[in-house]
């Protein structure tokens, strides 16, 4: 319950400040524009590149948002108050994760539409694309929220975050790209499901580990 209160409060803060969301959406627009020019105008090239562009843009923009989730506490100097709340501290991680996950899903849905328009991703298969977005987005946010919390007190946190997160999320990004490629090129449903299963396993393993480890890493 407290995790939900924290996530909703962060959403309210983000909506009033809008700094993180505006940066992420601007970044996405720039990435798509540059990639679109780089791979275009040939339709086959754009279609082939679309899934990779989708997940690369989502990964970078997601890191910006993960950093933002904790930066709210740094900017307001409220991290100590959060750490002084009673009970074990897993819920702080879950709250930040929930906040980041909601933003990622909204941003991912927006990105799906843009990539569909520019890179010929078949929006007719939107239920499958959305499942991939949810599974891949979950794996990504679980790790990004954890490492953003781990580095929140450090001066070089933004640089470190990218260095720490990207090696860890490679399996998630690869599986998500493969599933999206399968959807884009009409692969067998069983093949797409096998990538979803892999993503599901990553999500469960990473989530369990991060929840267990978080109280130890957030202590000063």
């Amino acid at each position, binding site marked *: 319950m407290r995790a939900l209160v924290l996530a909703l409060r962060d959403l309210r803060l983000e909506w009033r400040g809008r700094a993180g969301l505006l940066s992420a959406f601007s970044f996405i627009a720039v990435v798509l524009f540059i990639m679109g020019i780089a791979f275009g105008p040939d339709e086959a090239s754009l279609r082939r590149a679309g899934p990779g562009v989708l997940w690369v843009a989502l990964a970078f923009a997601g890191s910006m948002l993960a950093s933002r989730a904790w930066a709210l506490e740094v900017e307001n100097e409220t991290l100590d108050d959060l750490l002084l*709340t009673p009970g074990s501290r897993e819920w702080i991680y879950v709250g930040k994760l929930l906040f980041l996950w909601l933003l990622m899903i909204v941003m991912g849905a927006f990105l799906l539409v843009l990539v569909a328009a520019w890179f010929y991703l078949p929006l007719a298969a939107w239920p499958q694309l959305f499942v991939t977005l949810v599974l891949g987005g979950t794996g990504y946010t679980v790790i990004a929220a954890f490492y953003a919390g781990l580095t929140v007190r450090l001066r070089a946190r933004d640089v470190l975050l990218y260095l720490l997160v990207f090696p860890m999320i490679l399996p998630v990004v690869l599986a998500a790209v493969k599933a999206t490629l399968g959807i884009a090129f009409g692969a067998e449903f069983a093949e797409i499901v096998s990538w979803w299963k892999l993503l599901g396993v990553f999500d469960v393993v990473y989530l369990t580990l991060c929840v267990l480890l978080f109280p130890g890493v957030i202590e000063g």
Partner: protein
Amino acid sequence: MADPLVEVQRVWKRFGRQWVLRDLSLSVEPGEVVALLGPNGVGKTTLLRIIATLIRPQRGAVRLFGKPARALEAERGWIALVANPPAFYRHLSGEENLEQALALAGRPIARAQALEAMALVGLPEGRPVAAYSSGMRKRLALARTLLARPRLLLLDEPETALDSGGREELARVIGQMAGTGAVVLATHDHAFAAEVASRSFAMGDEA
């Protein structure tokens, strides 16, 4: 006799190579108001943060409410640390900040209670904290303390930026909190310490 609320036993703390606290011990009994006195850099804020369980000493032990500080979970809700300046979410109004703080501590309050506490310390409603002066932030911290009713109140230079009315209100809140627990405050102001504290603890050159 009841256990001390705070027992700091032979604590050492350093940042990098610089030792800030060396072999420091302090005990605070229920009902006490202890003023930590000393110039800048002697470790008053560090000691408050160690007592609040926010940082760990390199050596020594801290016990709160009769338990090792690291073992506290539910009891952390009995501790309130008011930093200097007090920390609030700038894009939220004063009453929203109070509601959020109490909700996250697992003790949600109604909007009316938040507004009542703000009125008690002379704050207007509906204004974002970004538009607050330093003194108003201190008053909002007082309102939060009144609502949270901690058993251990830790205050870092609480009297700075407050006008005479605010200082009176602060002294009243400190007295009220000492009645149900204990207060440890860090200050440079000897006159203020003499006014509100039952005991002073000198640090650095003043020790």
